[in-house]
């Protein structure tokens, strides 16, 4: 292909604009599973779950970030990610994540018969598990 079909990617957190760059493709953890976005993707709005955002190619090179809960807007030529928190995988505190996981399990056990509290506990567990997975995936070389 003569021209590079790159998309503009922005990752915005409440504290600041985390990334503003381009990439050839982006994979995102939507609430209902990972999705991959290429140039000319159909317009889409989705809620993000906890997981890794990966940018391939583009001016920023391959990059990975761990995001927890947010929102994404996909337009044919750009992707905007609103994330409540975003960190690079090698900056994740695994110890803290493990504690969170434990806390989540505790919440789950204590939830009794209320579905809302189960959902909350599941959210905590899911986030902690993803966090640990992302940190371990990154490894010392990343």
């Amino acid at each position, binding site marked *: 292909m003569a021209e590079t079909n790159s998309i503009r990617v922005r990752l*915005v957190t*409440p504290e600041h604009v985390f990334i503003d760059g381009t990439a050839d493709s982006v994979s995102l953890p939507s609430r209902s599973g990972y999705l991959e976005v290429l140039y000319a993707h159909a*317009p*889409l709005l989705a809620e993000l779950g906890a997981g890794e955002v990966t940018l391939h190619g583009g001016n920023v090179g391959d990059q990975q970030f761990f995001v927890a809960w947010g929102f994404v807007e996909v337009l044919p030529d750009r992707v905007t990610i609103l994330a409540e928190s975003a960190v690079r995988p090698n900056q994740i505190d695994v110890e803290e994540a493990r504690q969170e996981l434990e806390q989540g399990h505790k919440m789950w056990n204590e939830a009794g018969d209320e579905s809302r509290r189960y959902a909350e506990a599941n959210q905590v567990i899911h986030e902690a598990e993803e966090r640990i997975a992302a940190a371990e995936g990154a490894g010392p070389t990343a």
Partner: protein
Amino acid sequence: MANVLDLRRRIRSVKNTRQITKAMKMVSAAKLRRAQERAFAARPYAKMLASVLDSLVRRVDPYDPETGEVRHPLLAVRPEKRVTVVVVTGDKGFAGAFNTNVLKAAHRFLNQRSDVDIDLEIVGRKGRDVMRRSFTTAAVMDDEQMAHEMRLRERKARIEITGEHAGMLEKLSFEEAAHLAHQLVERYSIQQTHAVYLVFNEFQSVIAQRVLVERILPIKEIGKDDIAAATEMEREEREAMAKAARSSGVSLETEDTREADEEASKFGTAQVDYIYEQPPRQLLQALLPRYISMQLYHAMLESVAAEHAARMMAMDAATQNASEMIDAYTLKMNRVRQAAITKEIIEIVSGAAAL
């Protein structure tokens, strides 16, 4: 009459004080600049969240067409019988009337609403100290437990303090603000409270600030502030602030955010049919609590910036007062010294004449 030595000591002491106030002013100016940057950096997210919410609300009719009921609890307007007031003050003093102004606005609000039960959530050490003197602390009851039992907390008094958050602003993080917002949302959705008001110092720029009483729950209109009361800055105050800012190198102009704002407000509002990964209603449900978190976080950021600006101004005034005092004492000291010399000469001369 004071002697020269006393005056000299006095001058030295005032000079030392001036040094300190000057240093505090410069520190506040630096902190103000940083706080401004943080508030500025937080804008895109806030704008984007508001615009996507706005477009969602328009697409998903928040009212049920058949029953006319509101589809999301955070949009439901109820008669206000129990309200929660979040008061954002500073952690430290030496900031002129900053804390007083916020507390005054809060008290005015409390007096106006003399017919309803009020829960207070206080952010900042200064506010806590003052409020503790006038109001009792509520019996602690777990929010979850309340939700579970679906009953109201027993009240000891009409106005109670339900939460104190001292030291939160020192190292303000979104997470902490979101945590508080989460509690508020929870209380609102189980109808423990019927409205949530925010009393804080809004910071538009160094010379444009005001104390606001804003209703954040129920959400009435997205992207628009639901302001219940506002106290603008006095003209004198504004001039003093401008002077303090100039002398400590803080620019008065706000950074040009128009372009960035415009860009951000396009988020989620493009003229295309979006594919919604989740049903729009579900998206709305996930977004509304986040909107509250963002509003609270933003108010805190602005309050921090305003606090530093107020401190900078107070310290500028203090430095100036110290300078004036030094001048006055120096003049007095010289007069006393001269008087002493004259007296001595007269004594010598008259002594010589008597010979």
